[in-house]
């Protein structure tokens, strides 16, 4: 089953075209890692999927339902915002800079969206939040404020927060890039755990070793297009494209 699909997606910021015709389909249970130099459009692609950015051209499907269709920055379908919101609610997002809510304790960070968006009972939300926090290994930090946590701990709380909305797809936008090297491992371990549970994941990362280990498919982006895609072995070990080779040479 197709979880997300991008058809000829283009995105421009003024005169700068960041995505130049992206076609991508992610199937249920697939773990897709996206690699590429900064400015290649990786993050923008994720942000377009959950409509933090609006695409300029193309179509986006979430679970085979059209969520956005545009041509020349014009909305072609005028899809009801409530429908879009509920489609995008199936996409969980983890940011490079964590973006935890600093005024809320760890447990409140995890429960707030279920409480106010899904309007579920507080007791149920808290039980679920504690389960998720123990999954990421942080149940003893539930009453701390985010400022008292290390970067790695904050990012794990952010993962629990996204999972609390029961997303069908988890998107990670360079989740370890802002972390000190010794804290990267704990976040990757949490993500690996999710992958093993069969979560559909779309991960923008510079951790090539991690991509090789967990990805079903690796995508190399360059200059706003998907330059090469395939299994980790194909793309990371035996790249065909010159651009992929030179990128991997630079970072390995």
């Amino acid at each position, binding site marked *: 089953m197709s979880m997300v699909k991008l058809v000829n997606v283009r995105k421009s910021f003024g005169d700068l075209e960041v995505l130049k015709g992206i076609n991508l389909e992610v199937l249920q249970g697939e773990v897709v890692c996206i690699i590429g130099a900064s400015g290649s459009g990786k993050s923008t692609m994720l942000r377009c999927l*959950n*409509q*933090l950015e609006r695409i300029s051209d193309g179509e986006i499907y979430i679970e085979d339902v059209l969520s956005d269709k545009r041509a020349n920055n014009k909305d072609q379908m005028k899809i009801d915002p409530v429908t879009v*919101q*509920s489609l*995008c*609610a199936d*996409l*969980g*997002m983890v*940011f490079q*800079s964590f*973006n*935890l*809510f*600093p*005024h*809320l304790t760890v447990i409140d960070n995890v429960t*707030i*969206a279920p409480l*106010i*968006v*899904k309007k579920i009972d507080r007791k149920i939300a808290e039980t679920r939040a504690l389960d998720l926090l123990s999954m990421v290994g942080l149940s003893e930090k539930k009453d701390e*404020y*985010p*400022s*008292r946590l290390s970067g790695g701990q904050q990012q794990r709380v*952010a993962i629990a*927060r*996204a999972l609390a*909305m029961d997303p069908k797809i988890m998107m990670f936008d360079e989740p370890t890039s802002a972390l000190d090297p010794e804290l990267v491992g704990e976040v990757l371990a949490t993500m690996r755990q999710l992958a093993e549970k069969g979560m559909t994941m779309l991960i923008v990362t510079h951790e090539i070793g991690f991509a090789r280990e967990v990805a079903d498919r690796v995508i190399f982006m360059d200059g706003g297009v998907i330059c090469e895609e395939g299994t980790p072995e194909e793309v990371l070990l035996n790249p065909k494209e010159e651009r992929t080779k030179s990128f991997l040479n630079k970072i390995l």
Partner: protein
Amino acid sequence: MVEKGFVCSLTGVSVQIFYDEGKINVLNETQLWAIFDGTIVTLEIAIVAIIFGAVFGVVVALGRLSKNKAANALSWFYIWFFRGTPMLLQLFIIYYAIPIIYLDATGATFTVNPMIAAFVAFSLNATAYLAEIIRAAIESIDGGQMEASKALGMSYRQAMTKIIIPQTYKRLVAPLGNELIMLLKDTSLVSTIALFDLLRTTKTMASATGSWIYYIYAAAIYLFLTTIIQVVFDKMEKKLGIYER
């Protein structure tokens, strides 16, 4: 110098007033109550204005931040007018001009209660200043907060009320205290519309007796009130910042 003391309890502290034998500048009971009433007028206007200003300031600030062109233009115009004209002029428009406009339009007379005029004028003015303070505070919150809220499925309104605005509270305390202190002092303008606030009351006494001591009393009371505001707001700021380590 003979020290004759007069102790009274005014807004919770004792004020002891000394006087020389030759000059009549002791506060008799009537004067004391007049000063007390003046202080109440001053306080009432400042407090009504800060509360009204904070509530409607949020509304105007959200208007300024809104993508809706009409809301944006309206709040821009509001701030432009009330920040760009003297407070005293705004007070005159409400107290003197509106009854004349009403008379011209309807032929009927209409008087504005000066206290109501003061409440309205100071509230409208405070709204304009606080709207800009609140807008700046909202804009100072990292953009990632709104993105994370949206990514979790929150609407703009939910993100604003539960995530963004609560984070501005700590940043708002200091400028809010500042605004309250300004308001408290600016209320002295109401002497122009037949109200006896603290300053006008003491000035009248000074003119009547030829003694400067009443100005000292006024200064002492203003300082006493602003000190309380300063202390309370400092405490509030510390308390609200508890999540920042």
